[in-house]
């Protein structure tokens, strides 16, 4: 590795950095313009053409603002939290290929900062570290609303990380690799006819699961409970101002771009697309495809914000644990089965084993409600065949932590009578 290789690595890293930073600035502006249009307003339109320079002005304002820290704050953690958010947001995109591979002289240049063996696990790892930025910001502010926001965000992000991880796992199994470059390469070509071999078609359920958890992980509406302007005055970032707030803000929007980029990489072929024209066009086209695909997802994120009302917190948890997690588990099983079936030489044995397994699972599925019924209600109530309403408060239906928290309240009347 000589100095030219080092230079190329630095250039690719700087390219990614520039793409993400400019994208963030444009996203903030675009969000304000698009939401304004959807609400029949004008939006920022003073600075530059169509208000394009508004983000720059806002950034300059934030960085020159007085930096106020509450007296109650935990000094070091309060200082570190926005940095954690910003650093994590910046390093996450290192593994995402944002363009094709082209040759200059005798060197192959691939527009991806880092292509490790663990690949997109890096995104999951950094996503799980990103929680700290929010949780610590909420806790260290030494104030009630930020604390509530921090607690909400930690519970929410852990819940949705599961579904997200399983959706990613399904794609890993389907591709047979964790590397971002392999996943992109697996989506080259066409499936049948003119339809591209993007994973969004064979892996449609994983795509839906990943998209919903991406919205929840970036804490965008309708899952923006940690900030919930209406209830928590901005949640975990209430007590932040100036440059620290700017960092939190930047990290949030950068995460939206990164999540869209991961979606595009995993399900929409990343920088894949039809190539034509002279060499220089061939080199630039993949990046353009990538940017356009990411842009579409960014628009959807903004669209969601302008359209959907915020979820209630228990609904959010129900969706994550009771709907998405079981469904994701089933889909991973199904994907694994199809891959084994595709690669095995003894199809009949595999199918027979799977049939037995499915039969046992089905029998257990129908037997389990009978047992829990008998345990909770020996008399049995009518012939509803073990079916229960979703919000049944009877014991046995309370596997979820937040339900378990309700238990002591049923004892309270006795207590009061006694005292």
């Amino acid at each position, binding site marked *: 590795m000589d100095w030219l290789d080092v230079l190329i*690595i*630095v250039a690719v*890293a*700087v390219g990614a950095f520039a793409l993400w930073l400019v994208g963030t600035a444009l996203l903030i502006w675009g969000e304000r313009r698009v939401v304004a249009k959807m609400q029949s307003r004008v939006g920022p339109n003073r600075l530059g053409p169509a208000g394009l320079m508004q983000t720059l002005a806002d950034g300059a304002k934030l960085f020159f603002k007085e930096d106020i820290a509450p007296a109650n704050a*935990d000094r070091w*953690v309060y200082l570190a939290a926005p940095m954690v958010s*910003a*650093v994590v947001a*910046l*390093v996450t995109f*290192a593994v995402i290929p944002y363009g094709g591979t082209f040759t200059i002289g005798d060197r192959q240049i691939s527009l991806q*900062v*880092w*292509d*490790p*063996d*663990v690949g997109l*696990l*890096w995104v*999951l*790892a950094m*996503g*799980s*570290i990103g*929680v*700290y930025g929010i*949780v*610590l910001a*909420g*806790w260290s502010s030494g104030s009630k609303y930020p*604390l509530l926001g*921090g*607690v909400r965000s*930690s*519970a929410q*992000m*852990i819940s949705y*990380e599961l579904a997200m*991880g399983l959706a990613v796992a399904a794609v890993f199994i389907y591709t047979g690799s964790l590397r971002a470059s392999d996943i992109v390469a697996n989506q080259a070509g066409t499936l049948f006819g003119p339809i591209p071999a993007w994973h969004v078609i064979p892996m449609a359920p994983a795509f839906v699961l990943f998209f919903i958890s991406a919205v929840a992980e970036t804490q965008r509406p309708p899952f923006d409970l940690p900030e919930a302007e209406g209830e928590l005055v901005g949640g975990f970032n209430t007590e932040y101002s100036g440059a620290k707030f700017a960092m939190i803000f930047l990290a949030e929007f950068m995460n939206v771009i990164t999540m869209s980029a991961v979606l595009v990489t995993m399900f929409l072929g990343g920088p894949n697309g039809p190539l034509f024209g002279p060499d220089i066009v061939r080199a630039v086209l993949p990046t353009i495809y990538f940017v356009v695909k990411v842009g579409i997802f960014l628009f959807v994120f903004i669209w969601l914000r302008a359209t959907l009302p915020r979820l209630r917190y228990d609904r959010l948890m129900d969706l994550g644990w009771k709907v998405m997690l079981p469904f994701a588990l089933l889909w991973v099983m199904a994907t694994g089965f199809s891959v084994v079936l595709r690669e095995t030489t003894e199809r009949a044995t595999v199918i027979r084993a799977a049939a037995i397994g499915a039969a046992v699972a089905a029998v257990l599925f129908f037997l389990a409600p009978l047992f*829990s019924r*008998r*345990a*909770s*209600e*020996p*008399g049995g109530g009518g012939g509803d065949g073990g079916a229960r309403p979703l919000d049944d408060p009877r*014991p*046995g239906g309370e*596997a979820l932590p937040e339900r*378990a928290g309700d*238990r*002591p309240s*049923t*004892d309270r*009347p*006795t*207590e009061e*009578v*006694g*005292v």
Partner: protein
Amino acid sequence: MVALATAVGAVLAQTPVADPAGAAASTGAAEFWVFWILAPLSLAAAVSMVVLRNPVHAALMLVVNFFTIAMFYAVLEAQFLAAVQIIVYAGAIMVLFLFVLMLLGVDRELPTRVAQIRGQQPAALLLGALLFAALAVGVAGPFLGADSACNAPPDAVAAAGADAQPCVGLAAANEEGNVRGVARLLFTDYVWPFEVTSVLLVIAAIGAMVLGRRTERPEDLVDGRGVRKEPLRARAARPTGSTALDREAAE
């Protein structure tokens, strides 16, 4: 910061070069420096995790410790372990710890020497020393001193007999990719411990849920067991003194 990421990436992505001597020298040097920078950091974080009085600060120190361990894994070219260490320990378990700390509001500094069992400190020191000795002798022992490296190059394995520790090398171990290598071991040689551990974890989770339900009456810990629960209203209407709680209140 991207420069940092690139540097980390370059270190992590180091693939063994064809020239074995050169490769050993370059990874060896990187390993050396990373170890001597990270090891004190790791130890310092571990010690301050025990010493710090604010539970949240202690938890954060543990996170730092997990990070340094992940870096060690990465330097040893166990990329998958490094990623999983961050995702599972730093990302999920410690966030849950913090969640509980915040939810219960145990964020004030705890006074030391409260509710200590008598003789706890010497016992802890003794047991800690015993554990350390056991680990040092049992786990690390075979790899200390002259045995720290493999002693038999591939062509001399037969000559060394039972003492042979054949040099496979990271290049061979990671030949089909780090993730595939780990997966193959996990689902062939270690499938039984793996399954047993997962069953243990499930049992622990269920146990925690059963024990964690705060209740005054122990029979509530088991869901009914065929005994129909008294409806709330009937319980409330009972004369005072009939439940354990009421008796307590009366006293």
